[in-house]
């Protein structure tokens, strides 16, 4: 059995250089460059449209869906939830402003707490601080509220920061990076296998999307789900696909992965919510 797995290593000859690159800034530049070289016909800013940035046929159908996207219902629900009063008379607007246009501030490294704070976490922490129960993490109200907030934040630049005066932030980033590049599950896939090395290839009937731009568009109405879902819901789905047990939504693993993946999309714009296959 060992020899079988070892032989996978032998077949890795994908022309990648050995060694780890210098720091996050260099990582990001090399990451982006990789996709620009792989998909020379895709304008850089278009990568935020996911797989549709590389698949013209699918893009036409996507644009037809975007004529009246199913996530508009979520935005309306989210708007109501956002402004509805907690028992104490306050609302999410007291935490995030009148429109919740704060997508560009997340995810961020919280130095006091030593952890990555995602927008979903911030929403639920606002609720809890006001004596309300938190929403579930993957779908339903959390997706509706963040759909509304993301919609009002469209066009904000992604500029995830890794504070240099806190080594724990870099460690969290490195952990997310390791997640992204490490093979997992019985199918022995890393995120990078499908969404980097073979991005744009067919896996049965699905074309894998480029990871550059992965974090821009959440939450997403996915036709497959027939509902809205958060980024961590999708992470879990991917892990299930490769037959690895998913981590907990909003746990350290996925939060750090989000930190890394979003950092890799620095320079693109937040454009959620979105419709996806």
């Amino acid at each position, binding site marked *: *059995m*060992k020899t*079988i*797995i*070892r*032989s*996978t*290593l032998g077949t*890795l000859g*994908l022309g*990648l*250089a*050995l*060694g*780890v*690159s210098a720091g996050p800034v260099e*990582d990001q530049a*090399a*990451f982006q*460059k*990789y996709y620009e070289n792989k998909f020379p016909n895709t304008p850089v800013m278009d990568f935020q449209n996911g797989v549709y940035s590389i698949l013209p046929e699918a893009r036409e159908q996507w644009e037809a869906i975007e004529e009246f996207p199913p996530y508009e219902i979520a935005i309306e629900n989210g708007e109501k939830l956002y402004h509805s009063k907690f028992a104490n008379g306050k609302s999410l607007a007291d935490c995030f402003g009148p429109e919740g246009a704060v997508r560009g501030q997340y995810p961020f490294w919280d130095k006091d707490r030593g952890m990555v704070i995602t927008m979903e976490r911030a929403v639920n922490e606002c609720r809890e601080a006001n004596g309300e129960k938190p929403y579930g993490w993957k779908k339903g109200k959390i997706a509706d509220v963040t759909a509304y907030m993301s919609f009002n934040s469209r066009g904000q630049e992604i500029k995830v920061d890794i504070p240099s005066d806190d080594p724990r932030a870099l460690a969290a980033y490195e952990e997310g*990076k*390791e997640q992204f*590049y*490490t*093979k*997992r*599950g*019985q*199918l*022995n*896939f*890393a995120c*990078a*296998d499908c969404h*980097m*090395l073979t991005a744009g290839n067919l896996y049965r009937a699905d074309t894998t999307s480029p990871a550059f731009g992965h974090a821009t568009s959440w939450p997403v109405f996915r036709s497959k789900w027939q509902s809205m879902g958060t980024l961590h819901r999708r992470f879990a789905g991917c892990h*299930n696909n490769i*037959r*690895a*047990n998913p*981590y907990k939504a909003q746990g350290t*693993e996925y939060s750090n992965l989000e930190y890394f993946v979003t950092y890799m999309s620095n320079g693109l714009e937040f454009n959620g919510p979105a419709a996806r296959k």
Partner: protein
Amino acid sequence: MFKGLTVGLVAVAMSMGASAGASNVSSSKLIKEATAAYKQVSKDTGYQWTVSVKALKAAQAAFDKGKYTDAEAHARAAMDLIEATRLQAKIEADTWKMRVPK
């Protein structure tokens, strides 16, 4: 790419053929061992394969029905999958760095 899958399937096939003379006691012991191995790998690597969980559940379900031969086959399959998970983690501990573009 699907080598991991092959490992899993081969493991299951091998285990199926090697479980004659199973009893309540022997299969219970195997399930306990597999469960212990599972917990250890969780602790060491922080992750699991979904198929290991399934195999463990199948072993317990067969045991509950008194089908000890099946229970042992599933427990052995689980052990092999758990061992493969450990191996994957060991290999990947450094290999992942090769995939980072420079």
